[in-house]
């Protein structure tokens, strides 16, 4: 299949191209130098960007399905019958698998990583990923409360911890190391939580500080493509920014093994809270942004809040319980044996609420105060801050101070008093939007062939009907929102899959995972412990635990060998 995208305004920050009128050539699923006799698509007057890369979104796995079961009323908000190429779908904050694929593709996304894969839920998670069409996919494997990880780290057996982490990634077909409230979700098994980096995890001789530092060391020793992906302790708590800053400090001791950060602070908005009670709840985005600006070892994703009714779901059981006790709404706990303890509860972000107003402002402040757009990524922590359907609106806010001001005026006065958003006049350019939605997440994940349009890159492209010579995003936020809501064309693996916002072709993406090689003797040693843990504690047999390739759509292993023996 050959294709030429003619005459579009091309945005490709990784290759230093900003809005140049040029042609993009595609052959056999790759971007190439030139092709002859190819089908032409006229992109004149339109924006051409690499396909979007979603780095943190809860789109598959045990708690996503728990949320679907728990919220039939959410299905009703968004229902579509079977179309010419699409299945019948439903759901807004808990969209069905098929809708997830279609909707991301309409937004111009071609790759998405599900944010938390508890190992014991790996088969189920991949079964759901299997049913998400249109996208290349991957999953971040949760390790921050894992018994064996905590045991090896507390005993100072770092090589064994590395070998076990590598085995977990392979067994779960996971792509990276994720940690959620390290130590806290384990403490939740005893009805407790951890509130500082130096609290001790019950029954394990270890602290959150030691877990986080240990995971970063494992990650760099194995030289994994992505860094540690961290949801720190104290999510959503008033004044939690000091815990976050202390956590970010830990990166100073870590030497990166690759040209990327050593830590991704995920859904940073939820971790940038000042004040000492809900009454004087305020933004600490400036402090967090300062830390990121002064260190090339850190990146963050926003975790933006958008007003409305959504579902929160994290592998942070104690936080979800706390939230549901604030709202009085239903909640579910999903304990995962030796691994983690997610929770789920609905939440309504109201414009009238002083807290929600400040939360909304913090996400935008973070994106606007971090200077380098390659260190920021657009996320809503879907669906925790808002469903990913809201991305076009967030893009329009980032590009227009006027539109932010309009929202700010309609909020509780706390949003103006307790944040600095109103005084920030920075407006994102299209190039910067391209960074935070494509180039930066691809770089953070170590995906060499994604997030750019250079020769050899995957032919994943989004074309938006937005003429940068005619539309001034600062003054016409509605036009920006409209253009980003549905692509003129989405091209996945060299094939046109969306035209004028409609799915014209359903494709099955690849599943990316990491195979990190470690020494055979080391692996035999850890397997003895794994074996014992399964016999002694797990409710399943070891043989029924690892994910086989048959669960994956077009499995694609990223192989690394950093010489851990």
């Amino acid at each position, binding site marked *: 299949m050959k294709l030429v995208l003619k005459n579009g305004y091309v945005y490709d920050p990784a290759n230093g191209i900003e809005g140049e009128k040029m042609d993009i050539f595609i052959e056999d699923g790759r971007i190439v130098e030139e092709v002859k006799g190819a089908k032409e698509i006229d992109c004149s007057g339109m924006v051409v960007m690499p396909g979007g890369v979603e780095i943190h979104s809860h789109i598959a796995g045990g708690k996503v399905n728990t949320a679907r079961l*728990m*919220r*039939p*009323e*959410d299905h*009703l908000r968004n229902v579509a019958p079977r179309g010419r190429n699409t299945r019948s779908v439903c759901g807004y904050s808990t969209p069905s698998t098929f809708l997830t694929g279609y909707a991301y593709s309409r937004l111009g996304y071609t790759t998405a990583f599900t944010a938390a894969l508890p190992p014991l839920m790996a088969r189920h998670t991949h079964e759901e990923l299997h049913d998400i069409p249109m996208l290349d996919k991957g999953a971040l494997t949760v390790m921050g409360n894992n018994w064996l990880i905590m045991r090896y780290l507390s005993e100072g057996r770092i090589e064994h911890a590395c070998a076990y982490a590598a085995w977990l990634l392979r067994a779960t077909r996971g792509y990276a190391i994720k940690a959620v409230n390290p130590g806290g979700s384990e403490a939740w098994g005893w009805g407790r939580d951890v509130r500082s980096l130096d609290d001790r995890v019950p029954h394990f001789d270890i602290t959150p500080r030691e877990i986080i530092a240990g995971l970063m060391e494992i990650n760099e020793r194995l030289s994994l493509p992505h860094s540690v992906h961290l949801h720190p302790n104290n999510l959503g708590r008033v004044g939690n920014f000091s815990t976050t800053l202390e956590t970010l400090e830990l990166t100073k001791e870590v030497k990166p093994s690759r040209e990327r950060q050593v830590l991704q602070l995920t859904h940073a908005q939820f971790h940038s809270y000042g004040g000492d009670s809900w009454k004087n709840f305020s933004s600490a985005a400036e402090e967090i942004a300062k830390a990121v600006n002064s260190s090339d070892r850190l990146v963050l994703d926003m975790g933006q809040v958008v007003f409305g009714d959504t579902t929160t779901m994290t592998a942070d059981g104690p936080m979800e319980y706390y939230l549901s*006790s604030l709202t*009085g*709404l*239903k909640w579910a706990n999903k304990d995962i044996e030796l691994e983690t303890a997610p929770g789920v509860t609905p939440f309504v972000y109201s414009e009238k609420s002083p807290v929600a107003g400040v939360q909304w402002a913090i996400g935008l402040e973070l994106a606007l105060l971090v200077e380098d757009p390659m260190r920021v990524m657009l996320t809503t922590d879907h669906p925790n801050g808002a469903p990913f359907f809201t991305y076009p609106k967030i893009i329009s806010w980032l590009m227009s101070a006027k539109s932010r001001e309009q929202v700010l005026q309609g909020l509780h006065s706390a949003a103006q008093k307790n944040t600095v958003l109103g005084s920030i006049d920075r407006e994102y350019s299209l190039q910067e939007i391209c960074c935070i939605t494509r180039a930066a997440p691809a770089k953070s994940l170590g995906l060499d062939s994604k997030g750019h349009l250079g020769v050899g890159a995957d032919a994943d492209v989004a074309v938006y009907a937005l003429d940068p010579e005619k539309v001034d995003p600062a003054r016409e936020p509605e036009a920006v929102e409209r253009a980003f809501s549905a692509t003129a064309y989405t091209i996945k693996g060299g094939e046109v899959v969306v035209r004028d916002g409609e799915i014209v072709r359903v494709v099955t993406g690849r599943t990316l995972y990491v195979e990190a090689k470690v020494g055979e003797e080391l692996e035999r040693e850890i397997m003895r412990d794994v074996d014992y843990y399964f016999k002694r504690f797990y409710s399943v047999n070891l043989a029924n635990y690892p994910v086989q390739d048959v669960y994956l759509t077009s499995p694609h292993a990223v192989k690394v060998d950093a010489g851990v023996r």
Partner: protein
Amino acid sequence: MKEVVLEPVSQPDCGLVAEVISCDVFAGRSIREIEELEVYAGNRRARLGEFFSVSGSAADSAEETRIVITGSVEKTKWIGRGMSAGEIVVEGSTGMYTGAWMKGGRITVKGDVDSFAGMMMSGGEIEVHGRAGDYLGCAYRGEWRGMRGGSIVVHGDAGTEAGHCLSGGRVTVMGRAESFAGVRMRSGLLVLGSAEPRVGAQMTGGSIVVLSPAELLPSFELVERVSSPEVEGVRFEGVFEVYAGDLAERNAKGRLYVKVE
């Protein structure tokens, strides 16, 4: 007012999904067009005219349109769904979801209604001369923000969970309401001739009036004894005990009136 008469010809064994039986849909349509309206008999797409013989004529507006169903249609679901104006009179009984999401107008059922009548209603009136099934005036599955306006009156008894998650408006059951009437209610008024146990469980707001002695949950606390109180704008004759609850919930501000004399 113009009248469209639907005479039941047959009812499928499985349910007939007929949300098209609504003054909003009939208004401005000819009898021929009404006959052609799409219904589902189970998963089979069909014409309304296959199940009803249609006569009379519809007005141009919903307000001026009355629909009369001349017999019992217990298998027909969603009658008057989302209706905003006009009137539906059913000479017999109806199936599930009668008047769900209703916004205005009036539905009178001379027989019984099956479960979920008036679900998520926000305005208008439903009157049932017979009895109602479970979940009268309830919230949609999973939803905690239920019916928020309008009025439902049932002359007979009602099944379980009448007024489930009630968030406004008024639901009256003149007969006996089975268990869990007013469960998770948040505001509005629920009036019951008599109530089976666990009335008002998990209520956090609004008022329930029970017109005969009732067995309450231990999480309701006697506040006072009053005579002929006015509750949510309605006066009730007699002597009532007033309870606060459900105190098993956080910040519960519900009131439960039980007639004792």
